[in-house]
């Protein structure tokens, strides 16, 4: 039987649920990353299937886990950055036939099923539970944490992978046509790029609070600086270029007030984590990082794009869910790694959290202070998507590594890394995780 998405009931999407029933009883113990690439080079080993196998094996090796002891696999079957295999283009049979296939020849090329993974990882002899956390790594880790807590698996691989093909994304298909279906046209006729909604929210934020786009420069500079200290990231591996405030000011607009550096770069990459019970974690190689809670926002905006009011209401609601289930307050956060894959909404996330006492409208002033990894108020120490390329998982990896004290040159030094929060993607609609050095 094919693997199915996890039911909506798995996610902790409501307020008032109290402490998470599995608080401190699930832990992350292993991390595996593939190399990064801007686009697929056509080789089997660098296909999305190939890099996924590499990430999964690295995660098990990192944890010192025996593959035969793994009994769960949670992943996202969607891998597209926006790129799809063009209609009529010959299929890449050399790469397809380099692995054991499923019924879909593009499985492992422009998508990824659990069945493909299991067919190509014969060492995983004990898998009895597979499910999909559809969307991002943020979905998959919530699903995996709940599954382990519920006893559906005791040791689980969690996987998210991305493919990127040649050509500019979102430029083909319906966007190149003379006419589009009426349901799509309601939103799409005006030619807005993906960052448009965030750009409008940011414009309203600046109008309401008297801020300006140039005040984002320290955040962008900090993100890229941190990203260049993330050896698994794209910019560190391929283009070690810092961004100065002058670079930021001169960047071309995508949808003003969102410019090129406010948008992330689509890449190919895969990451896997190994989650297990707190009890089993004690016997593995790495220091366990305990999960205190997972939380979800499933809020639907009233109309085409969330207003600033809707964003602020929802980020505050999300924060209440995060804190309630974890049994913590904003004061307990050592650092934050909320999503940034549009840079212009990171402040919505951290204002909602009340990180370092921030209230709505204050984050851009906060960015003008010391937000670096050596100071008392680290912001996005992972560098996020802006510093490492589009994956939506650097933030999670960084939380685990920081708490394990193995973030290398990126290690926070101005705070003791004890409790951190990460998640996203959107401020309205996302999934979040609270990580801790101790189970209580």
């Amino acid at each position: 039987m094919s693997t199915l998405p996890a039911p909506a009931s798995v996610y902790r999407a409501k307020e008032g649920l109290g402490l998470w029933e599995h608080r401190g009883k699930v832990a992350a113990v292993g991390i595996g990353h593939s190399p990064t690439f801007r686009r697929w080079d056509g080789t089997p080993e660098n296909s999305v299937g190939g890099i996924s196998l590499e990430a999964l094996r690295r995660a098990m090796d990192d944890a010192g886990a025996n593959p035969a002891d793994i009994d769960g696999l949670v992943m996202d079957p969607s891998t597209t950055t926006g790129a799809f295999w063009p209609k009529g283009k010959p299929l890449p049979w050399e790469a397809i036939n380099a692995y054991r296939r499923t019924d879909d020849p593009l499985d492992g090329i422009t998508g990824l099923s659990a069945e493909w993974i299991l067919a190509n990882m014969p060492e995983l002899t004990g898998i009895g539970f597979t499910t999909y956390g559809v969307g991002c790594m943020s979905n998959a880790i919530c699903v995996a944490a709940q599954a382990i807590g519920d006893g559906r698996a005791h040791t689980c691989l969690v996987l998210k992978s991305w493919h990127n093909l040649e050509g500019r994304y979102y430029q083909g298909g319906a966007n190149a046509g003379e006419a589009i279906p009426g349901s799509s046209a309601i939103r799409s006729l005006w030619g807005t790029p993906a960052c448009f909604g965030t750009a409008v929210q940011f414009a309203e934020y600046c109008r309401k609070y008297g801020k300006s786009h140039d005040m984002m420069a320290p955040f962008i500079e900090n993100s890229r600086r941190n990203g260049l200290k993330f050896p698994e990231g794209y910019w560190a591996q391929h283009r070690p270029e810092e961004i100065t405030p002058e670079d930021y000011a001169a960047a071309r607009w995508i949808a003003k007030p969102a410019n090129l550096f406010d948008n992330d770069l689509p890449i190919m990459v895969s990451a896997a984590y190994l989650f297990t019970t707190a009890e089993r974690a004690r016997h593995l190689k790495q220091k366990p990082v305990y999960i205190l809670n997972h939380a979800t926002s499933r809020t639907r905006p009233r109309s085409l794009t969330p207003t600033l009011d809707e964003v602020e209401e929802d980020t505050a609601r999300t924060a209440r869910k995060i804190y309630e289930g974890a049994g913590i307050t904003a004061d307990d956060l050592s650092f934050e790694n909320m999503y940034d894959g549009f840079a212009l909404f990171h402040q919505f996330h951290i204002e909602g959290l009340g990180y370092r006492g921030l209230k709505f409208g204050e984050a851009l002033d906060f960015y003008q202070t010391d937000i670096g990894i050596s100071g008392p108020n680290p912001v996005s120490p992972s560098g996020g998507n802006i510093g490492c390329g589009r994956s939506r998982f650097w933030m999670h990896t960084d939380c685990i590594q920081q708490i394990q004290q193995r973030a290398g040159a990126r290690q926070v030094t101005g705070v003791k890394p004890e409790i951190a929060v990460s998640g996203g993607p959107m401020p309205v609609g996302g999934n979040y995780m609270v990580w801790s050095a101790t189970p209580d």
Partner: protein
Amino acid sequence: MPFARKRAVAVDRIIVVAFNAPFRLEDSGEGMKQGVDPDDLTRPFWEAANEHRLVIQNCAACDRLQHPPARSCHQCRFGDSLEWKEVSGRGRIYNYGVVHDCPIRLLQEDQPFNVAVIMLDDDPGIQMYSHLSGTPVDAVPVGADVEVVFEATANGQKVPEWRVVAQER
């Protein structure tokens, strides 16, 4: 401001399309929006636009407008009471962005262009997008009053657009 000029031409042409002759693609000129193929869910919206009326989906049971249209009411979750309600065609500019990197091929030569978010007077929670024909690029009067106009797309289907009628309230 090439986009503003072209948009103005396109809106003027609506009169010809509406009263004199069937629309022909070769009349469309540059910079028109993609054509629209109405589907079952949205057909009443597009048919009304061709009649220069703005209708929005409404749940009669909840007395609540919703847009984009959906198969069921987002509040009560039922679809039985969904209807199409004509609204005033007046609104206000919430805020805007200026698109410099557009994914739609037909619009790319008109970059950069405004896209404003319009909030309807009938219910400010309901939004529509607008290129704001005649408004210079990046000079959108946030908070200004707007009224609906109807513009032909590449296949002759008309679409609600908006123009500024008064500055900020």
